[in-house]
């Protein structure tokens, strides 16, 4: 984790309070010093080199939905530690720490709202919450999001940013893959659009379930997307990985995604697609 990522939440806070330390940020890609307020306005896309930094679930949703009429879905779901899992640290403690660090209950935030007036359901991963890992809560929240979509006939958009299944919940986590995939199937049966936006990074059990089941797959530039992590692949094949391996541009070339969209164009692009997809079915 870069120093910038570590302090990102505090930047957001301190700038509001006008404390000087957070006034300037540095782009992890081009090293440019950027006025933090300018960076926030640019939804954390470097104004100098266009690098798309990782952003929180809340920033993501707020920058995507219309300001008015947002309503959070299932905001109170929390994990129960079914395995009483413990490594060097207890899962319970890791979980509480993650809640404290991110100010989120778990790694997925779901809201209903509108996109240029079009009713939609949006789910976004909080990568800082245990690497955006999918356990029972993330799975259930995705289900609730899809159920709300079916109920209101509003398209579902999911912004993925996840290392994969949450191993601290063992096989319960793995089963979230089939549970969420079922919901995409039910959406599909109802002809309700599901747009999967793959952001940096989308790996493992999340990419191998609903994230790769969209009617349309959109990726942000240069996002890491794949099944196995690059380190695991490298250790398995014992050769150097091709240039840009598992990056958005690579996936576009291989036919795994439909398009790469700049963060600033996302709202417009998704709206254009959804308007067409719901035009004769709405």
């Amino acid at each position: 984790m870069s120093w910038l990522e570590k302090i990102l939440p505090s930047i957001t806070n301190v700038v509001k309070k006008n404390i000087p330390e957070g006034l300037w940020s540095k782009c992890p890609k081009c090293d440019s010093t950027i006025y933090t307020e300018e960076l926030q306005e640019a939804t954390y896309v470097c104004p100098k080199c266009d690098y798309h930094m990782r952003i929180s679930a809340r920033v993501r949703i707020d920058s995507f939905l219309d300001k008015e009429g947002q309503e959070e879905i299932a905001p109170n779901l929390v994990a129960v530690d079914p395995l009483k899992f413990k490594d060097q640290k207890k899962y319970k403690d890791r979980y509480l720490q993650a809640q404290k660090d991110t100010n989120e209950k778990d790694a997925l935030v779901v809201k209903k709202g509108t996109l240029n007036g079009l009713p939609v359901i949006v789910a976004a991963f909080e990568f800082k919450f245990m690497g955006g890992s999918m356990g029972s809560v993330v799975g259930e929240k995705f289900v609730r999001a899809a159920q709300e979509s079916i109920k209101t006939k509003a398209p579902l958009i999911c912004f993925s940013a996840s290392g994969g299944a949450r191993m601290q919940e063992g096989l319960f986590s793995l089963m979230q893959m089939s549970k969420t995939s079922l919901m995409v199937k039910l959406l599909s049966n109802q002809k309700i659009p599901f747009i999967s936006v793959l952001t940096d990074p989308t790996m493992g059990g999340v990419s191998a379930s609903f994230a790769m089941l969209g009617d349309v797959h959109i990726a942000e530039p240069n996002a890491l997307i794949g099944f196995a992590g690059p380190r695991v692949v490298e250790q398995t094949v014992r050769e150097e990985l091709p240039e840009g391996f598992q990056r958005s541009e690579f996936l576009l070339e291989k036919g795994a995604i439909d398009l790469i969209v700049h963060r600033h164009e996302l709202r417009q692009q998704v709206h254009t697609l959804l308007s067409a997809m719901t035009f004769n079915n709405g």
Partner: protein
Amino acid sequence: MNLDYLDFEQPIAELEDKIEALCNIKNKADITQETDALKSKSTVLTKKIFSSLSDWQISQLARHPKRLYTLDYINTVFEEFTELHGDRAYGDDHAIVGGIAKLDGQPVMFIGQQKGRSTQEKLKYNFGMPRPEGYRKALRLMKMAEKFNLPVITFIDTPGAYPGIGAEERGQSEAIARNLFEMSTLATPIISVVIGEGGSGGALAIGVADTMMMFQYSIYSVISPEGCASILYKDVSKANIAAESLKLTSTHLKKAGLIDIIIDEPLGGIHRDPSKAQSLLKAALIKELNIIKKISTQDLLSARQEKLLGFGQFKD
């Protein structure tokens, strides 16, 4: 040290070697008595060792070098197996074997992961790690099963989906996801059995089932004990500790409601009595098939849906 036995099986191995040595002596009378005594001693010892196996020891049994693989069951559990090859798009992945067979006279679609025993076989079957074309072949066969109203039976035995460059290039994630998507509403019964190792998404991709079974000493986990140890402890040698944390044995998973049926193994594990293991598996499958085929497709699908939606524990 007998390499066909695991470390905790070594005391049994020593006794078995003695029994074998005695049997090879072609001198009659007293030997029978002695071998019988040794045999019963071996049974007692095996019972003792196997009554208190750790989760790590069970993980080792699940990957025992002499454990039966998918192809070791195909002609004893099923009849008239016709293998069907290829995904119709890229290639034929040997790590997943599929085709039409009969179980107790009833036609079924069979799909199973194959590991391979000799080095040559291991390479051929890629150590049981399927590539996207393997999952796509499996899906093609499942859709065919749906079309011709054949129940699907899958055998799971994989360390995981293959993490290679080509596999990533050809959409490993999408191939797994697509199977979960289609299996969730496939309009024909699906019975899955973990016969050895159920390695994460690579296992689940042929394991969305109406009835989920596990052999007693098989494992099913979101991550291998080694993978878990290397991430959480930065030390692969802590795999034994990780195995205990992951609750990956059939007993734990049955208790958690994540699997339906445990198939008992012969004393000392499948490798100690392969033919008994084969008949136990066959009997369990026939019994389940006869129950499941009586359920209407509509009831089957709503039960499957309810089951999938019920997975997970949380507080609201």
